[in-house]
């Protein structure tokens, strides 16, 4: 590294819990920070979770504190709908090109909602993993940060778009907004691009695309969320009825050399949480957890113990081999119970695939990563959170705090 960094600014890429934490920790040490996020709001994956294990508390609680910290800290600049399109230079002196996607709503937006009232068409709601629809002018969700609407590109150039524009009393709708780019001079980069759920369609044996009542763990979070597509009720997607028998399948993609070779760490615990969602809402419901090994590290063992004490949860040590479609279209989970040697075919009302975590974005060229795409670089570009490997929220923030120190060290003049 050159003796003195040319820029003292830290760029944090990714506005999930990892990026937010890294940005705040660095800024609260006095660094100038630019935080960029490709979605219209900060919050990332955790904003779409209903609760955290093991406390069963709501992620938005911590986000609220962090957003307050950002709002009150003039050293952090936030850009949403922005992505890194190029990085050149070296540690201490990077030139970063950031490209933005049009939101069609300017910062003048007051979040009054008149545009949404004027919108007539609906688009799939990405916040709910497309399980529901939202007006073509919408607030990403009620905890969005920044609290600003977005107009869907599909209405640009239509009479509806004009009506939306006309409805805005403060003139904040700009349908002519184009993709833009700008450059930043930064001394260090924190790469906190997080994860995406492993594509369940690749798990052909589980027939996610064919059987409506086979869903993923991230979808389960939305079903259980008060602001989700079912207003917090866990319901069967096929018929909207309450499930009486639910299967939670671990390692849906993880620990599998055909899919993700590593263990995604959080799925076992998240599934115990899902079992709790079901059991809280439907005390009569039965939940079966299919697993290879239950991985509940450190004090999270207590969460496992709690789940084991629930008589309504059955533990089946088995990697289900496939899901068949039952006579009424219901999912039938098939496999071998490895402790009893029974070959089973169990019908369920709802099956949740505990899909694993996959690195969400490739780090910039030159930044070292492992064969799975997780960042391991220790110079100039520093990984934070799940961009460095599968971590739970607490460990992500821990990792982000470490990354913030690396950045603070790197830009120290």
């Amino acid at each position, binding site marked *: 590294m050159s003796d003195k960094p040319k820029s003292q600014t830290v760029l944090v890429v990714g506005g999930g819990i990892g990026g937010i934490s890294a940005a705040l*920790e660095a800024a609260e040490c006095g660094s100038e920070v630019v935080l960029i996020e490709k979605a219209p709001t900060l919050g990332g994956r955790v904003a779409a979770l209903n609760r*955290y294990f093991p406390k069963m508390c709501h992620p938005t*609680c911590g*986000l609220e504190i962090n957003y307050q910290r950002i709002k009150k800290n003039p050293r952090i600049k936030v850009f949403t709908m922005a992505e890194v399109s190029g990085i050149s230079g070296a540690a201490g002196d990077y030139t970063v090109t950031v490209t933005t996607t049009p939101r069609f709503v300017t910062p003048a937006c007051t979040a009054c909602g008149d545009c949404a009232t004027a919108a007539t068409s609906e688009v799939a709601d990405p916040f709910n993993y497309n399980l529901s629809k939202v007006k073509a002018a919408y607030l990403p969700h009620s905890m969005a940060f920044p609290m600003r609407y977005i107009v869907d590109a599909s209405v640009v150039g239509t009479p509806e778009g004009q009506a939306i524009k006309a409805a805005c009393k403060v003139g904040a709708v700009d349908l002519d907004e184009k993709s833009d780019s700008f450059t930043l001079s930064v001394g260090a980069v924190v790469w906190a691009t997080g994860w995406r759920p492993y594509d369940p369609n690749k798990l052909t044996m589980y027939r996610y695309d064919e059987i409506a009542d086979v869903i993923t763990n991230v979808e389960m979070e939305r079903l259980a969320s008060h*602001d989700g597509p079912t207003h917090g009720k866990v319901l069967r997607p096929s018929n909207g009825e309450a499930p009486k028998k639910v299967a939670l399948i671990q390692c849906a993609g993880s620990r599998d050399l055909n899919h993700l070779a590593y263990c995604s760490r959080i799925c076992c615990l998240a599934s115990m949480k899902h079992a709790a969602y079901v059991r809280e809402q439907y005390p009569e419901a039965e939940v079966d957890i299919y697993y290879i090994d239950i991985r509940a*590290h450190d004090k999270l063992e207590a969460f496992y113990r709690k789940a084991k004490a629930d008589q309504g949860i059955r533990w089946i040590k088995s990697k289900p081999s496939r899901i068949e479609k039952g006579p009424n279209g219901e999912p039938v989970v098939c496999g071998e119970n490895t*402790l009893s040697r029974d070959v089973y075919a169990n019908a369920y009302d709802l099956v949740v695939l505990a899909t694993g975590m996959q690195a969400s974005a490739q780090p910039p060229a030159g930044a070292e990563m492992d064969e799975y795409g997780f960042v391991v670089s220790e110079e100039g570009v520093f990984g934070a959170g799940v961009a460095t490997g599968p971590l739970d929220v*607490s*460990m992500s923030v821990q990792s982000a*705090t470490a990354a913030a120190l690396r950045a603070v060290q790197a830009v120290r003049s």
Partner: protein
Amino acid sequence: MEKKIGAYLCSGCGIGEALDVKALEGVVSKEFKKPVKSHECLCGEAGLAVIKADMEAGDVTLPVIGACSPRVMTDRFMLPGMTPIRANLREQVIWSHPAGDEDTQMMAEDNMRMMMTMATKVNQPVPFTEGEFSTTILVVGGGYAGLTAASEASKAGHDVLLVEKKAALGGNAAGYASIVPSKPPYHDPQPNPLPKLIEGVNATKSIRVITGATVAKTSGMPGKFEVELSDGSTHTVGAIILATGFRPYDATKLSHLGYGASPDIVTNVEMEAKLKAGKVTTKAGSSPKAVAFIQCAGSRDPNHLPYCSSVCCSVSLKQAIELTKADPETMVYVIYEEMRTPGTTEEFYRSAQEAGVIFMKGKATKVENGSGITVTVADELLQQDVPLGPLDMVVLATGMVPNSTDPDAPAQEYGAELLTADINPYPAEGDYKPEPSVPPGGPLLNLQYRQGPHLPMLADGFSDSHYICFPYETRRTGIYACGPVRRPMDMGEVHEDAMGAVLKSIQVIRNAAQGHAVHPRVGDLSYPKINLNACTKCRRCTVECPFGAIDENEKDYPVVNPTRCRRCGTCMGACPVRTISFDNYTVEMLSSMVKAVNIPDEDEEKPRILVIACENDAYPALDMAGIAKHQYSPFIRILPVRCLGSMSLLLISDALSSGYDGVILMGCKPGDDYQCHFVKGSAMAKERLSKISETLKSMQLEVERVTMVDASIADGARLPKVIDELVAKIDAVGPNPFKGF
């Protein structure tokens, strides 16, 4: 500078249509005799220009903005000078109540009255910046975590004092032959990074190493900790990193697994020593041809350690791999119940399988020593009891006990009850009735704090944070635990964790010197001031402070350590004589705001119910109810508080004596999985409230008038229903007889 209040009302976002803004202006100008202006979009450039012009002209120093929630447009209304006061007319009035309604209008007017009153009572806080502030970081513990912390802190430009109890640096890691891989390809054991790290620390001038010493006493506060070491030396430091690591679980308690029955039944620590020595041999001196590892030796066992020690699986994998490397003919077995190799450590599991290690799922039910050792395994996959043997060696994978106490220091009775939080996550199971497990020993830092000498720990004995989003939260500001004393973790994680603790130390040093609060009220300049003339020495503030920020002097008067304070106001709520206040937050201010509300006469049939809401969770939840356009009773008046812990019972009696028909407290869930960000603020509020019935009785009022509700930030849909139910319940009790007095 003289405080000049001016009010600004926004008529945008439908406020102008739903409310009579002129009448609102009248409240300010007639009742408060203050200037007031309206604008159709205050947060827009033109709107802001109106406020800025008045401020620049010196007509206004403290704007009161009646518009949207204070949670939005914060940056835009961040004007030079005093932080504007915001009256929430949008989310909590017009979005959650019918437009053009008389009751909605009354609600908005009362909101303005409350916030105008707040403005008259609030003062620009004067931060605590007295004296010198040290930027040195004290690291306690010279193992891998402590050495990493010292090295990284020096790289960030801080002087470090590193104190190690033993004569040599290195701690547990000094005994490691190799370590579990944390770098790709995660396949083979990695060389122990410790020797190089020690070399680096010893060569760094800004790190002062003192070995053979412990901390005898710690007093002071962030930026000004006074530390006395066992060698008699004293030091002033800005922050403290506790990196005291772990001790292996006492294997003599594992006689049921054969420990002690044969010298060839060893712990993983003993096996590591053999590997480090370069040759693994049995007591008889031969190379072992058959070795079994027994996992969870003590861990995950209600009779020993209730938690999972996290690293034992991968450590056994490493040792098993090393054994097969030394002699591929050796038969190595790992007896496990759950193989825990999270993340990319899964690759290391495969590596051990490739090396030919045999994994047996089941419990070791018996370990016998005859001609060779035989372990009886309840083999779950073969569904039978398998006698495994003769074995030449058995390795017990013992777990970690945190060094959150010093096993060599005498235990201190005082403060023991304050050691663990009021939580115990391990549910009872049959005969198993778990108690919080405080590792035996005395305090490490020997804090000279009113609340005892220890850094608080969780029920399992680790000095960890209770918060998922904030793993470095600490109940002793400026003191950060890292490494296995915080949570069982492997070397790779320890490195990250030590860096995190260094960052937090740097942060607290910086903020303390500027008089700023640290997380969660970052940047808050206020701190509690106590009028000792009125103090009755009741000690409630010193006992109830969640962060141990208040000590007692020799005359038993409370002494605030401002940089330890997190500004929750729990002391203020605890004080029975209202003698604790912040520059910008006082009981008097809250009380005046409560009384500022117009209470209609009994015959108007418009009850008034005070909602005291936690700023971080209940208040945003009410905002989100508004965003979703959920409607609720217009008879409530919402008073945001920093934490429900800052609520004094006097506030409730003030409300009831001034004619409110009831009070609803909305705070975070207390108890085992508490969600209060000030640890026990809401628990304290609940505790205080348990005594409200006496107050109510003395006022001859019904207990139904006061209710505490657990509210989370996700309760936007639930709270409106809760409010309506409680309003109906209070209404059924009838009007407050104090009305009109």
